[in-house]
């Protein structure tokens, strides 16, 4: 299996052109733990998350200052290939986005076929099954692997996307509000899955759902925006229990108890 890795973020500043979106983030993301990122809309959680696998730079004019060190290697060092970073740091998006022209099987296998890797069919079958089992989807789709992935329900599609992400055995798995398009039952299924996945992966999840953060995560980081137009900052990061019961910062307390503003 893959080896979970820690991520060390130091003095990270993120920009969209001249707009300073996130300011001076320092945090250590621990291996085999679920780190939840919470905070009000627009405070830069997605922006920060996307800087951890170099998706941020896909936006025209986007810029990064500071360092993100994945097991000893700064992913922003000049000689590092973003493609290599992204195959080590997987991502699950807010809206389920399976490839519409591919079957369920092909979707999960998509990452395995990249970078001209050749793989025998039985080995591929095995990884596809293992990944679908890992995403708690195998039983539901094992008889229709050749059908279109877009024909599944929203919750199933999201689990398919998780299977697709873990098939390449990343070291870190990033999830940006993975349950926001799902109903409560599907949400619980994904939370359950997240708890299982941390045995093998380092997980960072952005969520607007306080219960979800408290149920599914070990560590919680709170981002805040002093006022609109200013950059977002990481206010506090600690054990999830501490953040929800006894946070150090007043703004955190207001936010987790629902008294923000």
């Amino acid at each position, binding site marked *: 299996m893959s080896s979970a890795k820690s991520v060390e973020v130091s003095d990270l500043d993120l920009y969209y052109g001249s707009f300073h979106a996130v300011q001076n983030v320092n945090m250590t993301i621990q291996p085999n733990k679920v780190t939840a990122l919470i905070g009000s809309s627009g405070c830069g959680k997605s922006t920060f998350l996307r800087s951890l696998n170099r998706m941020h730079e896909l936006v025209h004019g986007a810029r990064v200052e500071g360092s993100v060190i994945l097991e000893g290697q700064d992913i922003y060092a000049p000689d590092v290939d973003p493609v290599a970073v992204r195959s080590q740091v997987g991502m699950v998006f807010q809206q389920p986005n399976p490839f519409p*022209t591919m079957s369920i099987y092909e979707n999960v296998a998509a990452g395995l076929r990249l970078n001209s890797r050749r793989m025998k069919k039985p080995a591929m079958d095995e990884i596809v099954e293992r990944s679908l089992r890992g995403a708690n989807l195998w039983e539901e789709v094992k008889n229709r692997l050749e059908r279109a992935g877009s024909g599944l329900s929203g919750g199933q599609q999201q689990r398919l996307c998780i299977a697709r992400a873990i098939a390449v055995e990343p070291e870190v798995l990033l999830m940006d509000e993975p349950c926001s398009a799902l109903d409560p039952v599907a949400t619980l299924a994904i939370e359950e899955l997240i708890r299982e996945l941390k045995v093998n992966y380092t997980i960072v999840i952005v969520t607007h759902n306080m219960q979800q953060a408290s149920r599914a995560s070990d560590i919680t980081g709170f981002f805040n925006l002093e006022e609109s137009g200013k950059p977002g900052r990481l206010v506090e990061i600690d054990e999830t229990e501490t953040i929800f019961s006894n946070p150090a910062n007043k703004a955190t307390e207001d936010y987790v108890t629902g008294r923000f503003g």
Partner: protein
Amino acid sequence: MASSSSDAAGAGRPGGSFRRPGDRVFSGLATGAGVTILALLAGVAIFLMIEAWPAITAPAEDIPGGEGLWHLIAPLAFGTVLGSLIAILLAVPMAIGVSLYITHFAPRRLSQTLGYIIDLLAAVPSIVYGLWGIAVLGPAAVGMHRWLAGNLGFIPFFEGPASATGRTMLVVGVVLGVMILPIITAVTREVFSQTPRAQIEAALALGATRWEMIRMTVLPFGKSAVIGGSMLGLGRALGETMAVTIILSVSGAVTLNLISSGNPSTIAANIALNFPESSGLAVNALIASGLALFAITLVVNMAARAVIYRSEQALR
């Protein structure tokens, strides 16, 4: 090509019996437009049938050439398809390449400028391309023709003897290819640029290189546009008259040899050349060749639709 309009009208049809007046007016207009297109198409087909009928039923010796309608039309149809095939084979891969470059590789500013230029080129009248073909490309290609005949003469296409003027099927194919390149590019570029961001990001987040991302998302997403754009281009190539008429040196021979001075003509060029001096049954014969062109276009279009349909059904 009008297939999507009927789909759209069907998809929005309300289930109940009550309909808002606005909906009723709009659906009336949409239906009217759809019916008009079909009626026009049917009208053209019927006109061609009626006018061609005397030639179809006439005895062989009365048809110009004296050997029957088939002997008149077949070489022309062959020339038409051959020239267009060269054009499509050259233009489609180029168009895909140019569109991908503009949408996913070129720097932002350049890509906008290139987009405008392509759209502009798509609107250039075909006679301009024809003049370029006969004045510039033909003479310039004579040397290449000789080289092809000398070095690749074992391939039937380049058997020779090489034309000394460059007024060959190969040059016609290239000119047609250049002519339809902007049309196909304009269509594919537009659709490639609309590939959903979620798909692109999904591929990149898996660790795909840019080319792999394009293969996984942009090309599948744009596939039907590539076919649709190619059909638009093919339609223009099949029907192209002036460029072919002024470039091609015609002997009526049915040959795959692309570089000699003895070439089959095309249906459209033949009509343009002969219609003014024709009368009686000769006119009917020319119209019958037009009917054949109509049929070729229809068959090619339907075949292309079938290809798209089958590849879409494969996943259900």
